[in-house]
């Protein structure tokens, strides 16, 4: 299964920020302000990276015009 460079960058950046969010010892226990700053610097970027990456990857993997056509299984719905 081939993976494009954009997908690799998307995956790596997400993993990096997920690891940064989960660094043990950061922020220190019981510290409210550092917790908020830590969230702004890690959780918010995870959301931004995921959605920006999603848009870029979708641009690369354009859907075919007939992608909306009902699949063969549509007559087998339960």
């Amino acid at each position, binding site marked *: 299964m081939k993976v494009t460079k954009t997908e690799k960058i998307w995956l790596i950046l997400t993993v990096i920020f997920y690891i940064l969010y989960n660094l043990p010892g950061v922020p220190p226990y019981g510290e409210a302000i550092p917790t908020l700053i830590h969230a702004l610097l890690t959780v918010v970027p995870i*959301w931004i990276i995921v959605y920006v990456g*999603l848009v870029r990857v979708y641009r690369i993997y*354009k859907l*075919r015009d007939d992608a909306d056509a009902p699949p063969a299984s*549509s007559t087998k719905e*339960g």
Partner: protein
Amino acid sequence: MLSANTIWIAFGLYMCFLIGVAVYVTLKERRQKNKGSLLTASVPWPVLVMTYIASLMSTWVFFAGPGAYYRGGLGYWLSEMSYIALFPIIAHFTMNKVWIVNQEKGGTLVTPADFYYERFKSNALRTILGIIFLVSAVPYVTSTLVAIAQAAQYATDGAINYRMAVIVIGLTMTVFVCIGGMKSAAMADTVQGLLFIAMLWVIVIACLIVGFGGSLPAAVGNLWENTQSFFSYPGPSGWTPYAARFGYPFSCAIGWTIMLPHVFVRSGYFGDNMKTQRKLSFLTPVLQAVVWTGTMMIGLIGLALVSNMTASESELIIPYLVKNFVLDFSPMLAVVLMIGFFVGSAAVGLSTANAFLGVSAAIVSSDLIKNTFHIKVPEKKENMVHRVIIVVIGLTSTVLAINPPDLIFTLIMFSIAIVTPLFAVLVFGLYWKKATKQAAIVASIVGTVLVLMTYFVWDVGDTWYGAFGLLGSAVTMFVVSLVTKQPESDAAPFFATLEAGMNRFYEVKKAKKDAKAVEK
């Protein structure tokens, strides 16, 4: 607070709605002369997104969720936000490819194990996975019935008998799935999903008005002054240490939102086209954030109003706030909110139970009866057999819920964990042609054993969930694949199918061109 009659009438109306949806879907299918299985569905994006969200919400949103934020604080919410965002990327790399293969197979895949069979061509693997997925499903149905019956009992101050509530709700669930199948469950989720997301926020706003005159800054300011631990790790009750901040969300990202069988079939099989799959990826995190934030707000407001609730009291924080604060403010509003709490808990709980019931029946029918014991059921009798299986599983879950085993809630928690290691098998299967069926079998067993050890030997299940199992299955998958061999002809049709599907749904040539441009 509410009379038993009020609850029964509210539940009766809700039951009529469910049966109405089931009858409508069945008649519509007959009019369109569709002769499909009860256990599969192909649905447009609004139905897919809402049935997926409703399945995730479960009784957690109205029950355990607010209590969890009460004890875990903002750090717990942040840890949830860290995994909720990951869904689109996980879905892109795995579930959209699962969906493509299913489309290429004519939408014939029914259970999660069916997909693994397509890749590894091993009946032994299919049986093992079928059993693991079934084990993860049944406790969930039982636990949902337990939670809803407890809600009815609490809302009526014990006027409704717990056992009676379990029996009525269990029978309703069984009849509903029996008549309408998976598609009616999905349709009902669409209607009720939005309604109960709205109800959740109505409860938030009502509690905020009653407690703090409608001012969120006042509630936050109160907490900042009196319980600042809410805003930091590990939270007011020490619930979110660094290990749990990783272990819990990580298992949720994989186990809960991808690998549990009822969400696996929804994200991998149910979409009617690729645009629907993409909308699911795009909208799910946003909707989940809206719901989970509402749940967090109830925990926040509850803690700002009452700071000394025990763990079990905090599980019922919504009815507690209604009884102790809203009732004095406006009895009518309190009644409306309490009915909303009960019907909301019942609805989102039944959504999950219906979904699990449907997929459990599919696992028994397809993975076990058809492909393990090789019992051939005539096509005309398939739906009747499916109904019998649904009735048996539904009644078994109901009987279990009447006298729930002590371990029931532990079992639920490791339902998520026990399916997490199977994700490694899925990823290796999709991206590594040398992955073998022997490795898949050993990795599935090793991952499951490690999860059991995490819970029952090392006693760290509440912190690490399925993380060690996933690591173990990934390493096992790699190592055993290197030392074993499987004929290339086994996997070749799978990769050919995937390649053909990619070409069918994507402009692959252009994608390659664009990829090269990006690389330059």
